[in-house]
């Protein structure tokens, strides 16, 4: 088997030569992946609770078009993708309070956003290394200002989620009683969409618009397979997100492939393992009950 695969194919996948030098050079990428992995894992718990995986995808396409517009007009790419994501997130939050409306609005917004983004990139005259990196993930290093942006977004979102944790949980799992108890559910859901837009915009920088779900949904979905505990689920989800994002980036440093396939694969494997564990547990408890 080895003979069929050219040796350079393997070294393009994993290559740890000169790793220390590479790491120093690409330290920012690792830190950025850490930020996105952490925040994505945390907000993923609420994405799952609120059943918004599809919304994440819709927001990320609009975020892509914002970033593409920024490239075309020579503006800051992170700012562009934040603006795109926020416009989409707020539109979805305002127009799609009910799940059914929401899905149709996302279905309408998503191709429009993607098409706009492709238009902007097609119009862009120069050569851009990260042109399609916005869709499928970066291979180039994250520069200092970009890392600064991501860090600010990350800290802001984590603090906001921490402070709003209980009302957000209440509104997510038990909206009728939450409203009866006086939680401003409408306002809260707009606030949540803004936080989600920020996280999506940050994630697009690292993993690409098409693959954002691997860091925002998969870790939380995996965590929910193995626990329902209100502290263990977010803790595991963050750990999974960090493992996938940072681990994927570290593996990618040596090779010539983009970061994304490493991250998505690790994230997927974690999910498969958690699912298997949960099935085994269910089978064991079923056996225990019948005997």
């Amino acid at each position, binding site marked *: 088997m080895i003979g069929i695969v050219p040796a350079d194919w393997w070294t393009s996948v994993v290559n740890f030569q000169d790793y220390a030098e590479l790491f120093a050079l690409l330290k920012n990428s690792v830190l950025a992946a850490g930020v996105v992995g952490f925040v994505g894992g945390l907000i993923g718990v609420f994405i799952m609770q609120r059943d918004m995986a599809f919304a994440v995808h819709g927001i990320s396409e609009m975020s892509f078009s914002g970033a593409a517009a920024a490239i075309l007009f020579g503006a800051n790419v992170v700012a562009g993708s934040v603006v795109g994501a926020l416009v989409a997130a707020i539109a979805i939050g305002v127009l799609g309070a009910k799940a059914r409306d929401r899905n149709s609005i996302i279905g309408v917004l998503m191709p429009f956003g993607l098409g706009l983004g492709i238009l902007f990139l097609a119009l862009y005259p120069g050569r851009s290394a990260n042109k399609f990196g916005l869709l499928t993930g970066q291979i180039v290093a994250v520069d200092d200002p970009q890392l600064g942006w991501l860090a600010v977004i990350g800290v802001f979102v984590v603090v906001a989620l921490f402070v709003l944790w*209980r*009302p957000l949980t209440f509104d997510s799992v038990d909206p009728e009683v939450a409203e009866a108890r006086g939680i401003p559910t409408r306002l809260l859901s707009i606030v949540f969409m803004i936080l989600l837009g920020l996280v999506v915009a940050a994630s697009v920088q690292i993993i690409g618009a098409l693959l954002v779900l691997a860091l925002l949904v998969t870790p939380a979905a995996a965590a929910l397979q193995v626990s329902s505990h209100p502290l263990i689920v977010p803790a595991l989800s963050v750990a999974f997100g960090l493992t996938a994002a940072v681990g994927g980036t570290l593996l990618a440093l040596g090779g010539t492939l983009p970061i994304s396939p490493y991250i998505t694969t690790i994230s997927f494997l974690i999910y498969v393992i958690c699912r298997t564990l949960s099935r085994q547990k269910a089978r064991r408890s079923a056996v225990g009950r019948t005997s």
Partner: protein
Amino acid sequence: MIGAGEEAILSVTDASAGYGDVTLWSRLNLEVHPGEIIAVLGANGTGKSTLFRAILGQLPLRTGTIRFLGEAAHKGDRRIGYIPQQHLFRKGTPIRGRDLVRLGVDGTRIGHPFATAATRAAVDALIEQVGATAYADRPIGELSGGEQQRLRVAQALTGEPRLLICDEPYSSLDVRHQDDITKLIVRRRDTAGTPALFITHDINPILPYVDRVLYLAAGKHRLGTVGEVLNTATLSELFGSPAQVVHVGEQVFIVGTPDHHHDAAASTLARGRQP
């Protein structure tokens, strides 16, 4: 049951509600006194849940007022315990039984999300009160309908409510579990005098405890004791079409409700949300 001299907990005065051209109910007067259990009956779309939403301050009335403990009904009054229309939690909902109860205790607060010792004690006491200790630590989505509903009662009993309002607490429960839930609410009535309003399609689970019935139908309503409202003459007049009240053993069935001509048991009406 009606303490004549006692101040009403809830006073609905000359109230009407509707949407667009539709009047759901009008000139509704209802005083709820301590210890009373009142069943709110009526077909789908007659405004039962609308009445509850108005009591919860979520919906403005067209006319009239609703006062709760002497104040105008307002949003987020924690002295009302609310059991919403039952829909089971999905498997995989990331909370345990005790977390649902805890949301009632401190779920509206902002700040760090970790439970204080006082919160934990309050949650334990509530769970104990409804006899749910054995399964409170299991994921909510894995609990049976009856177990979930017990925890909902515990959540509604948070903070010593002065009024309980229960929207279809019996849907998807078998008779034994219906009875369990009823007993919890009746016990609260007996120990603390907390009155309860029940929206229900089937009055039978609470029939032995009901003091009065409010029957809503096509913009009209009747309020009175079970005997005064659930009789053939009153309901025929209310529906504007022949209706018959049938007593089978200790149960009561209404034949010929306006939206359900074919089925003998009004209790099996389709369940859905009110507009």
